[in-house]
């Protein structure tokens, strides 16, 4: 998409409007009018998808302070560091003074090691400046901003600090019976939290997910829901479209009726059906039980198959009328003279359907199928409200799983990986459809 605001041939000033000038200004105006939409689409739709992919390569957890941001380098949280480091040194020196012989020696060794690491962190003048500033602020009890608190450090220093701290806790544990053992261990572990390591993990989330049973179960649920509901909607929708493709009294009313289930928010209709499917007091579950569709009214929302059936049934109720409407519009473009000619030639109704209606309706059907399939594949609100993915994850779709990872477990890295998987599936489905539809969908009329 080149957004060319400067057409090659600038119109010459002063000359009367020539064809060329008009063309150039038309081109420029064209790009100018398209630009705002293009920029918005790139910013709010294309960038997030790419960013989702980027996030999916990190161990990103919003509730864990050391992993709440994407980082490729080592950092130290100075506020945390300075709130623990001096006290840890004090505790260790204090213990060394009380201990004897080898214990004192090893404690002094630890203090020395820590001080060495601290010195090498402060070696960098920029770090040193920030270090002192934060130290002063902490002494004066001033609040330290996150930005000021975080400082980038050498990988070697960070790893050395990490190792030294492990050594501290290991040795303190070994020298059983230290008076302030708990303090020393607590300080060393909170000091460890001050070291922020890069959380880049490459394709690990994908590896885990692609071998995860729950992920495949979600893909299976989503595919089953999509295939069955779209198929039923197409067949029933086509039948209804064929039947009502004639002039009759009350057309407008019927059309309005058809639109209502489509227009009502999915979340609201899901809540409504939850009431109708209720095992004790729901009218629909009672009817289904009476006609023998289910053994027991409570099966609908509490058994695996029942829950999946409920979701598909609700989706069919909500979207079949809409499908019928789209196909009806396609049917109305077929000239009736074709059918007249066919019946003069003695073609049966079925023959007319297969040789006239279906071929001429092909592109309408494919477009309707494309949009419905994609809609069904990313299903979220219906399942979220009606079953929440249950019982026992039997209706958990891939979007629901991604949502749960992100917003219930605050694991945004893993959730992003799942959402990229949804995106790839959707891309594959649309490519298959577009191959059938060809450029039909986009060409100028």
């Amino acid at each position, binding site marked *: 998409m080149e957004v060319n605001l400067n057409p090659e041939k600038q119109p010459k000033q002063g000359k009367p409007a020539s064809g060329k000038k008009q063309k150039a200004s038309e081109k420029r105006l064209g790009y100018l009018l398209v630009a705002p*939409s293009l920029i918005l689409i790139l910013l*709010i739709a294309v960038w997030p998808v790419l960013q989702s992919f980027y996030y999916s390569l990190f161990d990103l957890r919003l509730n864990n302070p050391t992993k709440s941001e994407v980082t490729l380098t080592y950092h130290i949280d100075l506020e945390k560091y300075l709130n623990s480091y001096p006290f840890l040194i004090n505790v260790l020196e204090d213990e060394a003074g009380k201990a004897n012989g080898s214990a004192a020696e090893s404690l002094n060794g630890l203090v020395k090691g820590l001080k060495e690491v601290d010195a090498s962190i402060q070696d960098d003048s920029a770090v040193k400046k920030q270090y002192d500033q934060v130290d002063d602020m902490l002494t004066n009890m001033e609040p330290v901003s996150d930005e000021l608190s975080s400082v980038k450090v050498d990988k070697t220093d960070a790893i050395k600090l990490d190792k030294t701290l492990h050594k501290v806790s290991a040795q303190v544990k070994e020298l059983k019976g230290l008076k302030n053992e708990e303090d020393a261990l607590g300080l060393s572990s909170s000091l460890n939290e001050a070291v922020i390591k890069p959380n880049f993990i490459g394709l690990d989330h994908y590896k885990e997910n692609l071998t995860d049973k729950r992920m495949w179960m979600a893909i299976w649920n989503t595919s089953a829901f999509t295939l069955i509901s779209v198929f039923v909607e197409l067949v029933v929708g086509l039948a209804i479209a064929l039947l009502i493709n004639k002039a009759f009294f009350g057309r407008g009313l019927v059309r309005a009726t058809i639109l209502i289930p489509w227009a009502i928010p999915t979340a609201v209709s899901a809540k409504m059906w939850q009431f109708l499917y209720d095992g004790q007091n729901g009218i629909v579950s009672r009817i289904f039980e009476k006609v023998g569709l289910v053994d027991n009214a409570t099966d609908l929302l509490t058994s695996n198959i029942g829950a999946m059936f409920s979701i598909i049934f609700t989706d069919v109720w909500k979207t079949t009328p809409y499908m019928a409407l789209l196909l009806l519009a396609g049917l109305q473009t077929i000239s009736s003279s074709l059918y007249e000619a066919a019946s003069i030639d003695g073609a049966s109704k079925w023959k007319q359907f297969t040789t006239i209606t279906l071929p001429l309706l092909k592109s309408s059907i494919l477009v309707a199928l494309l949009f419905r399939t994609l809609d069904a594949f990313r299903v979220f609100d219906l399942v979220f409200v009606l079953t929440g993915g249950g019982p026992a994850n039997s209706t958990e779709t891939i979007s629901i799983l991604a949502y749960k990872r992100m917003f219930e477990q605050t694991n945004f890295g893993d959730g992003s990986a799942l959402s990229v998987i949804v995106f790839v599936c959707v891309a594959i489905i649309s490519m298959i459809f577009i191959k059938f539809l060809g450029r039909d969908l986009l060409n100028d009329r």
Partner: protein
Amino acid sequence: MNKKAGPLFYIFLAIFVFIVMFPFLWMLVSSIKPISELFGDKAFTPFTSKPTLENYVSVFVNYPFLRYLWNSFVVSGITTVYTVLIASFTAYAIARLKFKGKTIILGLVLSVSMFPQIATISPIYILLKNIGLTNSYLGLIIPYTTITLPLSIWILVTFFRKIPFDLEEAAKMDGATLMQTYWKVILPLAVPGIFTTAILVFIAAWNEFLFALTINTEDKFKTVPVGIAMFEGQFTVPWGDITAATIIVTVPLVIMVLLFQRRIVSGLTSGAVKE
């Protein structure tokens, strides 16, 4: 094909309409039942001896339902106005002006309309959280653009293409500039199409769930679909309130659909049907 409608046809039609409308009718009946009749044997009777409005009162008294309605209205209204405005420029350019790369742009618009919302949510959520826009109207209006902008461009392009080119030529002959042609000739003719698009965009924004659920978590900024989905009682599910709330949001929709059904259908089928 038999184009005459017989009595059998009307019977079929009545059954079809009844099945489609049954859930709403049942909700309507349930919403005026006293709560005690929503359980037990009386739960299955299609009428009530003691009609009451207590469920409707409860919806407004026990929940900030008016606030939900207002939030939905503000968010959907602003989203509609601003996306349709921007989309109308773009659609006009794509449908009427000659420049390179139109097919690619239209292809981009179409593919973005197929994006699953879940694939964009994590960066959008983290960004809005960092700049402090979660729990605000703007926090929903911005992400809603991903849904509404491609939709409106797509529909509007079809509408703009239908306007006869002769009019534009005539305006050009009279010496009007391109912008004058747009404002004085094309736009007035496109008003019905723009209105249709606005209705569809408004419905799409009104019904959106995933962004509304994750971005605006405070009661003060919840929209209607999220609000109703989150209705919770202290011990049991408040079915009485839910039935009443459902009817409250459905009635205006029914009126709107009755008034504008012709337009909505033309908007839905444009782009999907070859003429």
